[in-house]
């Protein structure tokens, strides 16, 4: 035993576990994954008073040891000592919400029965007091038979006492054999015991949660509630695009500078081309989305931390039920507007397997931020900049139409999927609605930081690798000197494009598009750069470059072709990262293969319909 002792934080959802974890470990945390499942493993280092380190792991919130969701499964396996890649914890810190004792104590009783050393953190005692609830921690400790420490994680109250108790627990020899799950009493018996203990420990009680009820009477109002939700979403999308402009420009300038510097440093040749055209341009094209993603996540994290997100799910449940989903699917789908990858990862909280699978399969239909550069350039080239109504331009209207197309497509897809491949009893919607809370800047920032790290790591590995491969496909083999064949045409990618062209010709696509579709598999926005390369315009960012590109597009593409191209991008599953994360989340190739298949077929059919309708309409 030379490794630092492992202590797990465990408790119900909404017990304030993560806040306590952040308060105990500060910035010394690591986000990883449990092997085989994509549940995140949050761990951090806690230094005891005598300097000895303890590894603290924050387990996903669970209601009991009888797992409903993937997250809960991991929690159960870790405390039972059967999670692959994780040691059995040496002690547990059970976090309970002081204002919700009767419910949270049931899980506590289950955990205590396991026989591991336990300390109970009676968290958020300040809020409970404000709520008119006075508790006696000593009575609670006596009833439970373990130490109980009142804490307020966000104000760092009780942390020293908690650390001292952790110290005492990990120093103990582990004596008793550990109970197995089936020796533990059934849930009803435990629940009744929990209620009895909670009422014994409650000194005074007044009706609950005045503020939360007040807010809810607005947020959940049958008429005002939905209006508020739409307004919030509107502000969110406005902010994502408005606030991100400046940082996006900085990043673009930074990468351009890097490209120039690398160009100056490296000798002319294939290696310079690999570094500048391949690596820097490719990775840069993806990293520019970091500001958009962070702003969107900022909103999502704040909405989650305040407790509003569950209210949004509540309001959306009826609509989602129409297509066989539940309100819970709303949260991952909302995230997918930034990027389908975190959206698909967020489906883990959905209990029902079929429900979760359906949500994963439709997530790519939410218009992610990577489609925006493609939409923007085609719209500015082909859609006249005309006012249809005061303040409503035709270009903006078309853009909105493309977003709506994706949403409608997703709903239709969900409806069909739920009747065929993901058929099953209509899943339920049952969710605890936590009290409203003021979000803590520190917790939100830590959340954002871990998102940024995940994204940058991905850009540095998967995306860097794919862009290098694509660069190679576009650059080799070189045409013979003086043959007059363009290098792109002669390259492997060019030859692949010739094959694709045969297939996409019937839906109005030309060779340039066929060529752009290959690199767009890595990241959709690369399509713009690829078309630019085909037209030998090396820089689409400059005013002149952009203008030249739209002129070339207008000359080479008909309007029906352009419209078909836009429609293609609404549906096409064009992004390797999405396919990869789907494979990880569904444990195999079956579902990503199905997703790619159904989305390509839909994209092909929809683009074809658009093209031929436009041709017959004489556009």
């Amino acid at each position, binding site marked *: 035993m030379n490794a630092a002792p492992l202590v797990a934080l465990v408790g119900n959802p909404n017990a304030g576990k993560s806040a306590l974890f952040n308060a105990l470990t500060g910035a010394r945390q690591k986000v990883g994954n449990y092997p085989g499942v994509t549940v995140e493993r949050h761990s951090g280092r806690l230094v005891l008073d005598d300097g000895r380190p303890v590894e603290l792991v924050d387990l996903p919130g669970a*209601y009991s040891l009888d797992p409903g969701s993937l997250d809960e499964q991991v929690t159960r396996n870790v405390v039972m000592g059967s999670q692959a890649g994780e040691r059995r914890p040496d002690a547990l810190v059970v976090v309970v919400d002081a204002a919700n004792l009767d*419910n949270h104590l049931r899980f506590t009783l289950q955990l205590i029965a396991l026989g591991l050393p336990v300390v109970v953190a009676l968290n958020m005692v300040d809020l409970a007091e404000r709520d008119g609830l006075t508790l006696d921690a000593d009575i609670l400790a006596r009833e439970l038979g373990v130490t109980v420490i009142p804490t307020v994680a966000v104000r760092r109250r009780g942390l020293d006492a908690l650390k001292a108790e952790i110290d005492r627990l990990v120093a103990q020899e582990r004596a008793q054999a550990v109970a197995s799950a089936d020796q533990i009493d059934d849930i009803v018996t435990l629940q009744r015991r929990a*209620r009895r203990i909670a009422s014994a420990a409650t000194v005074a009680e007044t009706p609950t949660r005045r503020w939360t009820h007040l807010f*809810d009477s607005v947020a959940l109002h049958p008429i005002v*509630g939905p209006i508020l939700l739409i307004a919030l979403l509107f502000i969110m999308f406005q902010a994502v695009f408005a606030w991100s402009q400046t940082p996006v420009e900085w990043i673009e300038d930074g990468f351009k500078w890097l490209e120039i510097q690398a160009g100056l440093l490296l000798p002319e040749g294939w290696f310079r081309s690999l570094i500048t055209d391949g690596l820097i341009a490719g990775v840069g094209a993806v990293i520019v989305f970091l500001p958009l993603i962070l702003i969107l996540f900022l909103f999502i994290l704040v909405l989650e931390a305040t407790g509003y997100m569950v209210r949004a799910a509540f309001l959306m449940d009826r609509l989602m039920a129409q297509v066989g989903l539940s309100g819970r699917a709303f949260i991952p789908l909302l995230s997918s507007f930034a990027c389908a990858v975190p959206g698909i990862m967020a489906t883990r909280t959905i209990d029902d397997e079929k429900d979760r699978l359906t949500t994963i399969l439709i997530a790519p239909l939410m218009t992610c931020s990577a489609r925006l550069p493609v939409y923007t350039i085609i719209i500015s080239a082909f859609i006249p900049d005309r006012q249809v109504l005061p303040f409503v331009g035709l270009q903006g209207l078309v853009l909105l139409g493309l977003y709506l197309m994706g949403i409608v497509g997703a709903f239709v897809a969900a409806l069909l999927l739920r009747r065929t491949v993901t058929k099953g009893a209509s899943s*339920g919607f049952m969710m605890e*609605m936590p009290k409203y809370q003021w979000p803590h800047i520190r917790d939100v920032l830590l959340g954002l930081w871990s998102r940024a790290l995940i994204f940058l790591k991905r850009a540095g590995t998967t995306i860097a690798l794919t862009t290098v491969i694509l660069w190679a496909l576009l650059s080799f083999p070189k045409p013979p000197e003086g043959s007059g064949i363009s290098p792109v045409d002669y390259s492997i990618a060019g030859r692949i494009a010739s094959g694709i062209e045969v297939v996409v010709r019937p839906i109005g696509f030309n060779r340039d598009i066929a060529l752009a579709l290959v690199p767009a598999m890595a990241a959709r926005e690369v399509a713009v750069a690829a078309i630019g390369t085909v037209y030998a315009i090396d820089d689409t960012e400059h005013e002149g470059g952009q203008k030249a590109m739209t002129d070339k597009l207008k000359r080479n593409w008909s309007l029906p072709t352009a419209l078909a191209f836009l429609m293609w991008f609404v549906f096409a599953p064009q992004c390797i990262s999405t396919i990869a994360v789907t494979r990880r989340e569904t444990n195999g190739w079956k579902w990503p293969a199905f997703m790619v298949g159904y989305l390509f077929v839909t994209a092909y059919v929809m683009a074809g319909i658009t093209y031929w309708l436009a041709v017959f309409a004489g556009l």
Partner: protein
Amino acid sequence: MAMLSSLETLPRRQPATVAAIDWAQLALPEARRLRELGFDEGVGVEVLHRATLGSGPIACRIGRMTVALRRRVAASIRVAPGA
């Protein structure tokens, strides 16, 4: 017993007590989650909000917790008036 109403039809803001739960009406995972959220005979319950008119979910207080559930599930929970 026949006079008991269900949580689905219980008027808003009228404290009641869970009298019985028709577990047979519920799917297994649903029943488990309902128990975990604290639904049990003898527990105080109150309807707080109903989503859009018609078929949306309802939000209710159970013990000290607020829980959202669908009407079909609420219909299987029999309640007696009074806390």
